[in-house]
């Protein structure tokens, strides 16, 4: 018998696969389709229309959503930049050095926050901010986002760093390059795919964070997720679906970029 048999020969495979895909994507599909619904009802189709997209850009709540979107994007961008920089430095310190006391502990401590329940981090961050009397608002959200984005940025960056063999740096050193030149002309260019992946991951994680943000945002400052949550408290309106669809689009684009980057990289390595 062949060991690697075709997946189609597994009984019930196609049925199970279709079921899983439906459960995963049907809700998203419903939201996307009904964002183009002309009717005010979220369950009854009333013809194709772009009025809800118009609504979020020019309607009553437009200003609120635009402000929230601006906050979300600027926070996500800055948090991703700072977190990526810190994660990159951490990766150099942990991956690019000879073993030191507590090295393994450091690696675990860097990734542990991913496993900590987010609600715990949220409560802890809020308590910490109030202990040091840090004023809640835009800056507190940014600081919290930078912190929880670091382990996410660290994942692809350290993975990439581990895959770059030390021999390239040795070869560069052998060919008269000093530390600065090795960093600039060897390590950094080879790290670019990992850095971009880390940045995008941090950006997306920050963009759609809700729990921590809602704890530390203070009054009056909203990001897109908290603004959307605030709106649906008064009932789900189709404009929320339009907004969610736009968010989904942004995430999809970023993930796709990240995917193609890592694939191009893999192709390089296989050759």
């Amino acid at each position, binding site marked *: 018998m062949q060991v690697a048999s075709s997946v189609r020969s597994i009984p019930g495979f196609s049925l199970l696969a279709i079921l899983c895909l439906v459960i995963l994507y049907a809700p998203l599909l419903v939201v996307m389709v009904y964002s183009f619904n002309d009717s005010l009802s979220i369950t009854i189709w009333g013809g194709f229309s772009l009025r809800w997209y118009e609504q979020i850009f020019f309607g009553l709540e437009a200003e609120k959503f635009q402000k929230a979107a601006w906050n979300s994007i600027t926070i996500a961008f800055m948090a991703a930049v700072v977190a990526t920089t810190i994660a990159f430095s951490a990766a150099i310190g942990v991956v690019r050095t000879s073993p030191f006391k507590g090295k393994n502990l450091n690696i675990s401590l860097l990734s542990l926050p991913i496993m900590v329940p987010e609600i715990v981090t949220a409560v802890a961050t809020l308590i910490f901010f109030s202990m040091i009397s840090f004023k809640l608002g835009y800056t507190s959200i940014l600081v919290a986002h930078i912190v929880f984005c670091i382990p996410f940025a660290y994942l692809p960056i350290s993975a990439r760093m581990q895959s770059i*063999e030390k*021999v*390239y740096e*040795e*070869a*560069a*050193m*052998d*060919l*008269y*390059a*000093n530390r600065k*030149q090795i960093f600039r*002309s*060897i390590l950094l*260019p*080879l790290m670019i795919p990992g850095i971009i992946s880390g940045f995008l991951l941090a950006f997306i994680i920050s963009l759609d964070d809700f729990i921590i943000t809602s704890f530390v945002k203070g009054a009056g400052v909203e990001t897109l997720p908290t603004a959307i949550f605030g709106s649906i408290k008064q009932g789900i309106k189709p404009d929320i679906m339009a907004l969610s669809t736009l968010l989904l689009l942004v995430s999809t684009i970023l993930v796709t970029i990240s995917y193609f980057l890592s694939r191009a990289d893999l192709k*390089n390595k296989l*050759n």
Partner: protein
Amino acid sequence: MVLSGIREQLGKLDNNQLVAIEFQKVVKKFGSFTAIHNANLKIHDNEFFTLLGPSGCGKTTLLRMVAGFENVTEGNIFLFGKEFMHLPPNKRSVNTVFQQYALFPHMTVFENVAFGLKMRGWAKDDIQPTVWKMLDLVRLRPFAERKPNQLSGGQQQRAALVRAIAPQPKVLLLDEPLSALDLKLRQAMRLELKQLQQETGITFVFVTHDQEEALAMSDRIAVMSEGVIQQIGKAQEIYESPKNEIVANFIGETNILQATLLELNDEEAKYQIAEDFIITGDCVSGLVKNQEVKILLRPEKIRIGTSDNQVDSIQGTIQQSMYLGTDTEYQIRVPGEKALKVRDQNGFERRELLPAGSEVSLSFSKDSIRILRS
């Protein structure tokens, strides 16, 4: 040349030859493990020198100490008579060809070869022609704009080679550079490496575990084992007169027989291996009667069949035969319940394969025997 003039001022002479690298009582320890025991070695200028030994014998460690990737625990290494162990790798005018080539994957072949020159601060106008000259040297001009992963293994090998040669190092270190290539390519590269060394006049220090490679290319070879340099010499010396059992076993195949010195005079000695198995050989100075010795016999230096008066001969029984194309390898039982390995050349005269159980006579000449003190 100006360069050689400077070298003469710097280097010491060893048998009228300029010494490029000298290891003086070098010891290297990794924790409690001693990788190199007291290595003393002089590598001459413009020499193709090979460090040969099984994996883990310390040959790569010696190379990495010269390159600057490992420090020396005790002793010192000199480059053309000058101390340089305190310099970092980027300040040493030695270059390395790495086992896995280590071509920078994000740069083209041209950029790879130009890298060392750029780092040395060459002007752009000087870099261009030098890189083209280097690429022409190994026929890579048409591939200059390719990335390393678009090259074949042999092309990558040649690119790595000229990348290391381009900055005109005083010594080129080669760390098993042929081991990743297939057999045919490896054999072609041997010739190319040797030619490149002769054309450039750069001292090559070549590390390998492949004895055939070492014998084919080297001016001199150092055989290493377990961190000790066992023997230094020309290929022929090492093969024909191995200094000890380790060298004899590692280079080629050999029969090692335990024997007792039976009688000796000024010219020759008789060694007894078994009751009716006595060989005449050279008299090694300092041996006394009844002393235990070891006799080394290369399989291809034993002749099957007719013996004349010049040589000793004994009777044996063929136990096993293996046909290998250019020759046939026999296991032949001889007095003393020993089996000798014998290689019979499949040469000018067509020879019939001798079946197992055949009685044959074996002859040895005095010159084909090497005596070692036990």
